[in-house]
């Protein structure tokens, strides 16, 4: 093993034009597909003559983030780190702890190649660019199991209303209509999807972007809450906690459908299922074909070491390059941030997503418009609602309006 490493290092040092610099990269991508995607980055970076030192921390952002922030304020930062872009890293940037990427961004014309350009705006503070968006993930998908509907003897629904109407038949056949993991972020995400699907883009924008408490308490939202309360009843019998366990219920036909982001696609792929044959994906619940454009981004903490800075910039440039974007996103199951790459290898669901993206029917992601704090409050609200049938939709809506009203 060590010999192999040595050989690799030797090979790298021979072919490398510049001095090799170690860049430690922290992230929380640890599932099978995610790790494969990271490997694309690592290989591409090593090919530039530098060395990617992997610092994966499992357990999600809650575990990784205190580590990342401690390292940065402790004065021993890593070379690069993943963070959800948008509002989360704002303060680190303002404190002058992050490397300014504006120069390279201008040189390579990031503003022209990144699509949608709002992703780059999320990396921008006071006109300067501080992060590299690497992918687009969208939440607005309803995944349906063909097997479940066949077993129940009904047609696969084409939209949310048909899905609700078909539920009694599924229940009669002993199938859970709606699979839902018990973690807070999942119930919160599903709510947001219902808001867009049933309430429309304007309503969603009014509430999440303009923080309009009156709209949040209004009759249009009341309908969304009613539907959400109804969905709660449809998921009775779904006691799993992880999202991929819930997806597995759909794959095996134990559940009719699941509201989950496009990352669920990877699970169907791993299980050898084919879109349109074994499962159906409905963007925007089949009502409004619209997707949100959240995603992941990399930040580069500032260092005094010129060599390191140079390597950091090389990494930033590598992450946005055409070939890497294609290879990375195919592995990750997400959409590339460049509008000018060809994803011929993409499957049907991904192509649906790409088409919607090209048509411009897009929303910002919840993490881009709401602070982590507000998101946390919403998660608490919805996961409690979902698990306690004593809470009425009306009561939940009142709390919801209050949180939106207090949001900053």
């Amino acid at each position, binding site marked *: 093993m060590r010999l192999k490493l040595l050989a690799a290092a030797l090979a790298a040092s021979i072919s490398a034009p510049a001095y090799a610099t170690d860049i*430690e990269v922290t992230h929380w991508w640890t599932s099978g597909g995610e790790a494969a995607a990271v490997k694309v980055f690592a290989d591409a970076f090593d090919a530039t003559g530098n060395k990617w030192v992997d610092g994966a921390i*499992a357990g999600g952002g809650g575990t990784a983030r205190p580590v990342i922030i401690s390292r940065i304020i402790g004065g021993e930062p890593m070379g690069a780190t993943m963070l959800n872009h948008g509002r989360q890293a704002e303060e680190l940037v303002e404190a002058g702890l992050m490397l300014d990427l504006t120069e390279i961004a201008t040189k390579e014309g990031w503003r022209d190649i990144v699509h949608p350009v709002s992703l780059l705006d999320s990396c921008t503070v006071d006109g300067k660019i501080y992060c590299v968006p690497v992918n687009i993930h969208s939440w607005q998908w309803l995944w349906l199991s063909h097997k479940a509907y066949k077993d129940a003897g009904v047609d696969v629904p084409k939209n949310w209303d048909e899905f609700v109407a078909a539920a009694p038949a599924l229940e009669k056949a002993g199938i859970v209509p709606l699979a839902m993991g018990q973690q807070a972020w999942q119930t919160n995400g599903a709510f947001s999807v219902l808001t867009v699907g049933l309430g429309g883009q304007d309503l969603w924008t009014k509430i999440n972007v303009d923080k309009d408490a009156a709209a949040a308490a209004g009759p249009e939202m009341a309908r969304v809450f009613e539907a959400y309360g109804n969905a709660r009843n449809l998921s009775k019998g779904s006691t799993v906690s992880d*999202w991929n366990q819930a997806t597995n219920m759909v794959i095996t036909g134990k559940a009719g459908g699941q509201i989950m982001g496009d990352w669920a696609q990877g699970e169907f792929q791993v299980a050898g299922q084919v879109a349109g044959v074994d499962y159906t994906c409905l963007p925007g619940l089949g009502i409004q074909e619209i997707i949100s454009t959240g995603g992941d981004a990399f930040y580069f903490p500032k260092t005094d070491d010129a060599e390191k800075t140079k390597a950091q910039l090389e990494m930033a440039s590598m992450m946005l390059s055409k070939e890497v974007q294609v290879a990375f996103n195919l592995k990750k199951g997400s959409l590339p941030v460049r509008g000018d790459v060809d994803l011929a290898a993409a499957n049907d669901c991904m192509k649906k997503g790409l088409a919607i993206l090209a048509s411009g029917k897009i929303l910002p992601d919840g993490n881009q418009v709401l602070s982590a704090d507000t998101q946390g409050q919403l998660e608490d609200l919805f996961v409690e609602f979902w698990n306690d049938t004593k809470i009425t939709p009306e009561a939940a809506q009142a709390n919801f309006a209050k949180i939106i009203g207090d949001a900053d």
Partner: protein
Amino acid sequence: MADTDMATDFTGDHGPKPKKSISGRNIMLYGTLIVFAIYYLLPLYVMVVTSLKGMPEIRLGNIFAPPVEITFQPWVKAWSEACTGLNCDGLSRGFFNSVKILIPSVAISIVIASINGYALANWRFKGADVFFTILIFGAFIPYQVMIYPIVIILREMGLYGSIWGLVMVHTIFGMPILTLLFRNYFTSLPQELFKAARVDGAGFWGVFFKIMVPMSLPIFVVAMILQVTGIWNDFLFGVIYTKPASYPMTVQLNNIVNSVQGVKEYNVNMAATILTGLVPLVIYFVSGKLFVRGIAAGAVKG
């Protein structure tokens, strides 16, 4: 120092001698013990059995059934193959890091706490009780609150990111309980010994090393058990106050257990769990006897 000899002929057990081996009372006694033993053993049994099963068997069977086909693959995978991000070397990577963190942390925290306890028990100075009360209060502060201020303190001391910073953190957080233990123990030792040594002209350190330490094996064992357990099992401090090159084994355990993969590999998780717990477990079983002998030796005060 004739007192120490008393320890050797001390029997260690109390209570009336049982009259018959089979009596109603004995059945009650052993019955209760066995019921409790089942409660305590059940999880270990489940862990071991599960770690020896293949995934298909786990999905079908119940968790208490013994494995039909014993496989050691989960153990191999947990130790050397499980992946975190790009590093596919399982737990093995963290083992020596954990040892490197454990030894100085346990040693330094116990040395400092024993001196604290000794000073508090035998050399009380003005205000000592105030500091001690603050220390006990410190045992109740949630760790999470201290994360950022300690990062800043370590940075200013130039210790952030090094093993010594972590050693200091473990020493600080172990101090309240350990100091309490040592103080109680030293207080319970016969005062005559202390006075006699003082008359012989021994000072602060003289009494400590010649009288107190040799008589305190049991409490050192208890302190060691507490610290080994706490420090070996620590995840949060290890990951926050060091750099990846010195991450302890628990970080890899967390990574293996928390990675959301296609299927949760319960057998690998359980094997990883047992492997990570092995060091404290072994120390428990080895020091168990010392524990008893030590306790007997500690009982000379009568």
